[in-house]
C-alpha cells in the first residue's frame, strides 16, 4: 500500500476513534450540568434555577443514603486493595501462582449481575451457605441474619470486593512484571528482608502509584453501581445511585431536575472519593515514608485465605445457578433439589434466542470497534512518543468513562440524543457500549503495547518492509494473544452493560443483563438463575475462544519469553546492572 494512503487511512481512523470515544464526554457532562440546573427545553424549562438541588436536599433519606453509598464505595475499594495486595504478597512466584493466574480469566468473565444473583442464592437466609451450615450443625433452622439487602450494605461490600479483587490482581500482574519485582525480591531477601517485609516495605510503595488508575476505576464503579445494588443493596433507603435511577424512571417528569441534580452530586462525590484515594496514596508513599526504611517489620496479611475465599465464592455461584435453573422443588434445608425439571428452560427458550442474539450482536460490534480504536490510539500514542511534535492522548481522558459515574454521563448523553435522531436505539446503544468498553480494552492492551520490543520494528524496517507491513507481519502476530484477550474483555464489558442499554435503548432493547436484573427482584429463582447463568456463560465462551485463537497461532508459548525479554529492556539501566 502506498505510504501516503496508509497515512491518510490511519488519520481517518484516528479521527473516527476520537469522534466516537471521546466526543460523547462533552454532551455527557454538559447534559447533566444543564439539567441539574433545571434547564430542560424539552419540558419547557428554559431558565436556570436551583429547584433540582433544593428538592434533592429536602428529600428525607438523602444524608443516610449518601453516607451509606460512601461507606459501601470506600469500604469495598479499601478491602479489595488490601486483599489484592495480600494475595500478591503471599502467592506471587509460588508454584501454584500460574494456576491462580489462569483461573482469573473465567472469574473476570463472570458479569457483575450474574455474580450478584449467584451471591444472593448463596447468602440469603435460605441460601446454599445456610443449607450447608444446617447440614453440619443440624437443626439450626432458617437464620435471621442476611447479607442480601441488609441495611448497612455489608453484603454489597462483600460482593463488590470479591468481584473487584480479581480485576486488581489482573491489572497488577502486568504492572509487577514491568517493575521487574523478581530481582527486587532477590535483592531484598539478600538484605535480610522476609517475603512479607519485602512486599510491604519495597514493593507496596511502587505498586500503589502504578495501580492508582485501576483503584480509581474500582472506586468509581463501587460508588455509582446500580445493577448490583438493585439485587444486593440496602433498600431503606437505597444507595444514592439507585435513588437517582428511581427518580429518573419516575413517570412524573417533574422529578427530572432532582434526578439530574443527584447525578451531578454523584459526579462530585466521585471526584472527592478519587482525591481521597490519591491522598491515602500520598500518605503511604510520600508523607509517611519513614516506615519504609524503619526496619524489618511487617503486618500479617491473610493472602492465602483471601484468594481461597474469593475464588471459592466466585466459582461456586455458577453451579448454584445451574442447580437452581433445573430445580423444580428445593426445600430448605436440603442440599440438593428433591425434584428436577426442564420446564423453566423450555418455557424461556423461545424468548431467550432473541435476547441472546441481541446481546451477542451488540457485544460483537461494540467490542470490535472498541478494539480497533484502542489499537489506533495505542499506535498514535507510541508514534507521538517517537515524534515529539504530536501530543499523546492523555490517559486521564481515556479513563474518564471508567472514572465518572455511568449514571451521570449517560443521563447527559440521553438528553443530548433527544436533540438528534433518538429513534435509532440500536445505534445509540452500540455507541454507548463502545464508549464504556473502550477504556477496558485499552487498559488490557496497555501492558503488551508498552513491553513490545520496539527494536523488532527497527530491524524489520531495516530489512526494507513498509511501516504497514511491519505492523501486520511482525507486531500484530506478536501481540495477537493480547489483542484476542482484549477483544474478549470488550465483549464481556459490553455484555454486562445495564444502564447504557436501558437508558439509550429507551427500554426497547432487551439483553441478558437487562433481563437478569429485572428478574432478579422477581419471585422465581429458577427463571432468575437461567438468565444469570446465560449471562455468565456467553462472555465465558468468548474468553475460551480468545484463548483458543491465541494458542492456535502458537503465540502463547513464545509470548511469555518475549514479554520477559522486552520487559527487561524497559527496565532502566541502573536497575539492569543489578540483574546481570
Amino acid at each position, binding site marked *: 500500500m502506498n505510504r501516503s494512503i496508509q497515512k491518510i487511512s490511519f488519520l481517518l481512523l484516528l479521527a473516527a476513534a476520537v469522534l466516537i470515544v471521546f466526543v460523547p464526554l462533552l454532551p455527557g457532562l454538559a447534559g447533566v450540568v444543564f439539567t441539574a440546573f433545571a434547564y430542560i427545553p424539552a419540558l419547557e424549562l428554559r431558565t436556570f434555577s436551583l429547584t433540582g438541588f433544593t428538592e434533592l436536599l429536602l428529600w428525607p433519606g438523602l444524608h443516610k443514603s449518601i453516607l451509606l453509598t460512601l461507606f459501601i464505595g470506600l469500604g469495598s475499594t479499601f478491602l479489595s486493595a488490601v486483599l489484592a495486595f495480600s494475595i500478591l504478597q503471599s502467592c506471587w512466584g509460588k508454584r501454584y501462582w500460574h494456576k491462580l493466574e489462569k483461573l482469573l480469566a473465567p472469574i473476570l468473565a463472570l458479569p457483575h449481575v450474574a455474580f450478584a444473583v449467584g451471591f444472593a442464592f448463596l447468602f440469603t437466609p435460605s441460601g446454599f451457605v445456610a443449607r450447608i451450615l444446617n447440614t453440619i450443625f443440624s437443626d439450626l433452622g432458617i437464620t435471621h441474619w442476611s447479607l442480601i439487602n441488609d441495611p448497612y450494605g455489608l453484603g454489597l461490600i462483600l460482593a463488590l470486593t470479591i468481584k473487584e479483587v480479581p480485576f486488581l490482581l489482573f491489572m497488577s500482574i502486568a504492572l509487577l512484571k514491568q517493575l521487574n519485582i523478581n530481582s527486587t525480591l532477590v535483592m531484598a531477601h539478600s538484605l535480610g528482608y522476609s517475603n512479607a517485609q519485602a512486599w510491604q516495605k519495597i514493593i507496596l510503595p511502587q505498586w500503589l502509584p502504578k495501580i492508582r488508575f485501576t483503584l480509581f476505576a474500582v472506586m468509581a464503579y463501587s460508588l455509582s453501581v446500580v445493577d448490583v445494588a438493585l439485587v444486593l443493596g440496602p433498600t431503606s433507603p437505597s444507595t444514592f445511585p439507585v435513588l437517582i435511577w428511581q427518580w429518573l424512571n419516575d413517570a412524573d417528569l417533574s422529578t427530572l431536575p432532582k434526578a439530574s441534580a443527584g447525578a451531578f452530586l454523584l459526579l462530585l462525590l466521585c471526584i472527592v472519593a478519587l482525591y481521597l484515594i490519591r491522598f491515602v496514596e500520598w500518605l503511604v508513599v510520600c508523607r509517611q515514608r519513614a516506615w519504609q526504611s524503619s526496619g524489618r517489620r511487617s503486618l500479617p496479611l491473610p493472602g492465602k485465605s483471601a484468594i481461597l475465599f474469593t475464588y471459592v465464592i466466585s466459582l461456586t455461584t455458577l453451579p448454584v445457578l445451574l442447580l437452581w435453573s433445573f430445580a423444580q422443588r428445593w426445600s430448605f434445608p436440603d442440599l440438593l433439589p428433591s425434584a428436577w425439571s426442564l420446564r423453566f428452560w423450555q418455557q424461556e427458550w423461545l424468548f431467550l434466542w432473541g435476547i441472546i442474539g441481541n446481546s451477542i450482536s451488540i457485544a460483537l460490534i461494540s467490542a470490535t470497534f472498541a478494539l480497533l480504536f484502542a489499537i489506533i490510539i495505542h499506535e498514535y500514542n507510541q508514534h507521538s512518543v517517537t515524534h515529539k511534535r504530536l501530543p499523546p492522548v492523555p490517559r486521564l481522558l481515556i479513563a474518564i468513562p471508567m472514572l465518572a459515574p455511568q449514571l451521570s454521563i449517560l443521563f447527559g448523553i440521553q438528553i443530548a440524543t433527544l436533540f438528534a435522531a433518538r429513534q435509532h436505539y440500536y445505534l445509540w446503544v452500540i455507541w454507548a457500549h463502545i464508549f464504556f468498553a473502550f477504556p477496558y480494552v485499552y487498559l488490557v492492551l496497555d501492558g503488551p503495547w508498552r513491553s513490545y520490543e520496539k527494536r*523488532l520494528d527497527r530491524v524489520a524496517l531495516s530489512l526494507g*518492509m513498509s511501516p504497514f507491513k511491519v505492523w501486520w507481519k511482525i507486531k500484530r502476530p506478536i501481540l495477537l494473544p493480547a489483542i484476542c484477550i482484549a477483544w474478549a474483555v470488550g465483549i464481556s464489558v459490553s455484555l454486562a452493560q445495564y444502564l447504557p442499554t436501558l437508558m439509550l435503548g429507551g427500554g426497547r432493547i432487551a439483553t441478558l443483563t437487562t433481563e437478569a436484573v429485572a428478574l432478579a427482584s422477581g419471585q422465581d429463582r429458577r427463571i432468575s438463575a437461567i438468565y444469570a447463568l446465560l449471562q455468565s456463560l456467553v462472555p465465558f465462551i468468548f474468553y475460551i475462544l480468545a484463548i483458543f485463537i491465541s494458542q492456535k497461532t502458537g*503465540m502463547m508459548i513464545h509470548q511469555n519469553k*518475549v514479554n520477559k525479554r522486552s520487559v527487561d*529492556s524497559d527496565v532502566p539501566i541502573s536497575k539492569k546492572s543489578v540483574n546481570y
Partner: protein
Amino acid sequence: MSLSVKNLSIIDDHGKMLFSPLSFSIQKGEILALMGPSGCGKSTLLSAIAGHISPDFSYAGEYYLNGVLLNNIAVEKRKIGILFQDDLLFPHLTVWENLAIALPDKYKKEQRKTVARQTLSELNLLALADKAPSQISGGQRARVSMMRMLLAEPAAVLLDEPFSKLDKTLRSDFRNWVFAQIKKRKLPALMVTHDESDVPDPGQSLQWPWDEKQQNNVSDRNIKEKQC
C-alpha cells in the same frame, strides 16, 4: 559502495552537542570501529544513520550512501542493515521464516523457502529450520540474525555492539565469521563497541574523543572521495 558521514553531531534535548562534528567515509568491504565510553553517543549516532534516532536527541550533519544523501529517505528505503547485541529474531516466526521475511520482494513465494533453507544449510543449521527462535542456542540465533540482515541485500551495515552478549569462545568465532561475511559481500560497515578486541584493524577505528586528527588519519588511509 561507500558510507560517508559529513559533520555529523548528536544534540541532546538540552541543546548540548555530545561530540564535535564527525566526518568519515567507509569504503566497500571495510569496517570502521567507533569506540567510546557509555553515554558518549555511539549508539545514538548509529540510530541517526539508520533513521531511528530517539526523540530525546536530534542530529546535525549529513550522511550518504554511494553519494546519495540519506537524511530524508524513508527508513525502509535506506538499504542499511543493522545488527544489535540482542539477536532480535521475530519470536512468532520459525527460523526459516525469519530468514524468508528478509528477502526482497523480487523473490517469489516458493523461492523464499528454498533460499532460506539453502542459507541455513550453508550455516549447517538446516536441522533447526522449523524451530522457534527460543528453541535454538544463543550462538545459532546470532548467526541467523546476521544472515537475515544480509538476505535483505543491504548496501551498508551498522553493527551496534553485536558481540557483547556472547561468551568468550563463541564471540571470537562469530566475530570472525561476521567480518568475513561483510568482506565477502563488499559492504561498508560501521561498528560501535567498547571492546578493543572487536576491532579488526587498529588503524580502522576511532577512539574517544573522536578528534579531527583521528578522523583525518582514517580518511587518509581509506577515503579518496572525502570531499564528496
